[in-house]
């Protein structure tokens, strides 16, 4: 893993995500606490990378910072060649719209919207005029066309996660983040969800950054990074 200064120019265009010297410290009751220290990471277009590590090692914090959901305390991140750490929150949101997908452990569907409307959301935020058609097609691809009008609470956990996957892929994202996508599902359902996610990823050619505890799942990825006490290293 090359080590460079945080201000070094970012020029590698085949990379969809590049983080340099990422630091994250928080002020707790016992003083300053380092969660991430000098993390470097590069994700190439279409690459599938697993981040594994024990609970509390900083995996989710890193994922959040890489996705622009949180700001690092130091270092730089480029997402799709844009300097994420120099953008404000709304600029980062605009950058994600339609180009970055998410799959969460707790599904995070909007309870007020139907399955179809949930899937349409990223397209609409990216001003796609054919949102409904594309979303319906995506729902068919995950096998939930007949559940389009259902609200999340009317769906099983597995179905909800399939809707979430449809929502993640509907805008053909260049980059997909997944946080323990099977954490809330039983083994068999989880396996089917993973199969679906990998199949769609292969079809769309998206890069995938996956945080997981699941060793079998990590084995299916191109690369595995191990997070330990705020440090990241290759397996």
């Amino acid at each position, binding site marked *: 893993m090359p080590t460079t200064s945080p201000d070094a120019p970012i020029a590698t265009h085949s990379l969809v995500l590049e983080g340099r010297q990422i630091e994250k410290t928080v002020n707790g009751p016992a003083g300053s606490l380092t969660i991430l220290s000098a993390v470097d990471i590069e994700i190439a277009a279409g690459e599938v990378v697993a981040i594994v590590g024990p609970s509390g090692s900083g995996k989710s914090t890193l994922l*959040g910072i890489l996705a622009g959901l949180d700001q690092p305390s130091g270092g730089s991140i480029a997402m799709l060649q844009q300097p994420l750490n120099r953008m404000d929150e709304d600029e980062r*949101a605009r950058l*994600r719209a339609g180009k970055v997908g998410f799959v969460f452990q707790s599904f995070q569907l*909007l309870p*007020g*919207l139907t399955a179809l409307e949930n899937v349409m959301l990223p397209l609409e*935020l990216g001003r796609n005029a054919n949102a409904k058609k594309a979303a319906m097609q995506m729902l068919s691809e995950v096998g939930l066309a007949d559940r389009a009008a259902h609200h999340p*609470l009317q769906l099983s956990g597995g179905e909800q996660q399939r809707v979430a996957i449809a929502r993640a892929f509907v805008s053909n994202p260049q980059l997909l983040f997944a946080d323990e996508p099977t954490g809330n599902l039983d083994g068999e359902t989880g396996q089917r969800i993973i199969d679906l996610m990998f199949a769609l990823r292969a079809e769309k050619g998206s890069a995938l950054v996956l945080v997981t505890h699941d060793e079998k799942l990590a084995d299916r990825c191109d690369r595995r990074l191990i997070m330990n006490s705020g440090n990241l290293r290759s397996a």
Partner: protein
Amino acid sequence: MNILFDIQFALRSLKRDTQAGELRVLALSVLVAVASVTAIGFFTDRVGKAMVRQASDILAADLLATSGTPIEQEIEDYAASLGLTTAKHVRFPSVVINPEDESQLVAVKAVTSAYPLRGALKLSKLDSRDVMAPLDTQAPGTVWVDAQLINILLLKQGSTLTLGARDFTVERLLLFEPDRGENVFELAPRVMINDNDLESAGLLGPGSRARYTLMMAGEPAALTDMSDWLKENQNHVRVIGVSDGSPQMQRALSRAKRFLGLASVVTVLLAGAAIALAVRQFALRQADASAVVRTLGASRANVVTWLSLRLLLICVAASLIGILVGFVAQLLLADLMKTWFSLALPAPSWRPPVIGMLTALAAVAGFGLLPVIKAGRVPVMRVLQRDYSGLQTNPWLTLLFGLVAALLVVWLQSRDILLSAIVVAGVATMLALFALFGQYLIRGVRMAAPARFKLSVAGLQRRTASSVIQLAAFAIGILALLLITLVRVDILSAWERDLPDNAPNVFVINIQPSQVGGFSQQLESQKIDISGMYPMVRARLQGSNGEAATGRRTRWEYNISHSDSLPAANTLVEGEWWDGSETGLPGLSLEHDWAEDMGYGIGDTITFKVAGVETTGIIKNTRQVDWESFQVNFFIVAEKRLLDDMPETYVTSFFLDDDFSTATASWARAFPGIATLDIGSIITRVKLLMDKASMAVEYVFFFTLFAGICVLLAAVQSTQGERIRESALLRVLGASHSQVRSAIIAEFVLLGAMAGFLAAVFATVIGWSLSRFVFELPFQFNGGLWVLGIAGGALGIGLAGYLATKKVLTTPPVVALRHT
């Protein structure tokens, strides 16, 4: 992102929102607030106008211009230019002679055909007491006479009366003359003739003591304009408006308005509190969704726009339904009131629905904007790590926003910034006190609770902060309901006591000193109780403090009485009553408000002229007079020595149960010169007004009750999420269904009883202040309030809590733990 998408997106969420508990409560609160503001607005608007009209009946017009000389054409023209309808009458004393050559001094009133502009004459034939309807105009050459004259001159239908240079036919008995009360002390019996007959009878020569009156009716703005113009340009004309009329009616009217105003402000504040609770709950629940959509690319502004739009849509939809409900409610009431009013209610105006809508928007925006902005700023990392902080609003900013919103909402109702500030400051203080006492109360209950209530008390303990908020909300809700009950029951009944059924309805004036003994015996023989015989001297104001009075004041005549002691139903405001040992100028006692209007104070001297003789007194004290008592009262009471050897007559008042003209038939002949006046109709109208006001208060109370229920629901709803999670955990850990249920019910009963106790304490204090300072009525301690507060609070909130948390019990623990 365009606005169309924003609206679409907001609408999409709205479908589901309608099933969310807090939004139902929000919509219901908005609906109740708007319905009540609209209904009360429509109601006070229409009934208020009708009440003023009813008060106008006493003048038989909305505005009078009177003068000792004929009213100039210029004045009539100006009234016409303002679109006012007019009528005229001339009043003067004269003498009538019957065919038997018996004569009688009478008070003639010559009226034009449009008279009266407000209210109605009641007429009958002399031989039949059936009221004539429709009321006909007076034919030339006929006179209408009152019962007194009929009794004196023994007149019959068609009798001839000579008045001035010509004969008239007696055509009608005047049963009721709406504006007789305006000149209640006009001494002689009434004879009413057509204005066109004045000239042929040659009644008004130069120097005749006539009073000319132009009567006007029309729109309030035009009336104000007219009144101002007259006061500015027509110095010789005396202007009398509705507010200058009967003080009894005025006080009844202003009290009724205060009742309604108070009730509607309380209703709106309660609904506002419910809105505040519900909107905050809504924003809290949107924190997760906000983080998710921002993860997917939405900006903070997008989120705030969507949430605001959703609130706006709910607010507008609920407001529209509220307006409809308010409109229908007032229609029903207006229909009910029609039977009470002699006239059709004026049409409703567009203002109440607009005010209703503005109130809802102000409440939702004021209480909701801050939580919504906060929801838009919730950290996006919540999607990955739930422990990332949620909605943390600055308590001072929240307080500031809440106060401004409450101020705006109350101001929209009262249009009185000072009053609004006082009310809002009062409510804020109250909430703070409730929260403070609530903490101690919860702590006390926690220590004192028996073992079997452990689970419930533990609930209160776990959520101390939200329990205190709930307690304060419950207490303010119960307080409002208790207060309205207090106002409704206690104050209304005190008001009714003010005007007892046996209030005097007959005045007898012009009793000569030599007749006092005989007349008293006559009344005694008819078993009529009198309040007393009061001496009365007619006097003209000459000047004060050695300076001659100028302008219209010099033309006014006053009835001055003398007394050794403070008259009954009067209270001293300033100064001392005389004890008879004083020397120097004789003492004067003035009615307090009148003295203020005239600019007189203690120690000023006033000179009067009585029968050509000047006499001067010094102001020793001022009195408050209870005009609503209908007892004989005087603006000016003097020490006896001021009026020694002055020509005096006596006046008395009493309650007469029998028919007026039958009972008084023999008096006029036995005691020549005395004049009896039937004021029963005025009393009836004041009573009618009070009844209407009571009805209105009852009606408004209904809305207040609803608003109170909304607050309770919103407060119960505010902890529902926590309760669902907690009860799921308890059930997972082995608590039975009934254990959890009893714990929840007991917790709410406990909260309700505590809130009821706090509310009863404060209701008693506020009730006392309201009676004492606002309604000026005696206060009565009401023990029922405490029972109602504590027992009602425990029962009502226990039930509301149980019903609203049924979902807590029916949600399977696994669902509760997964989704909340």
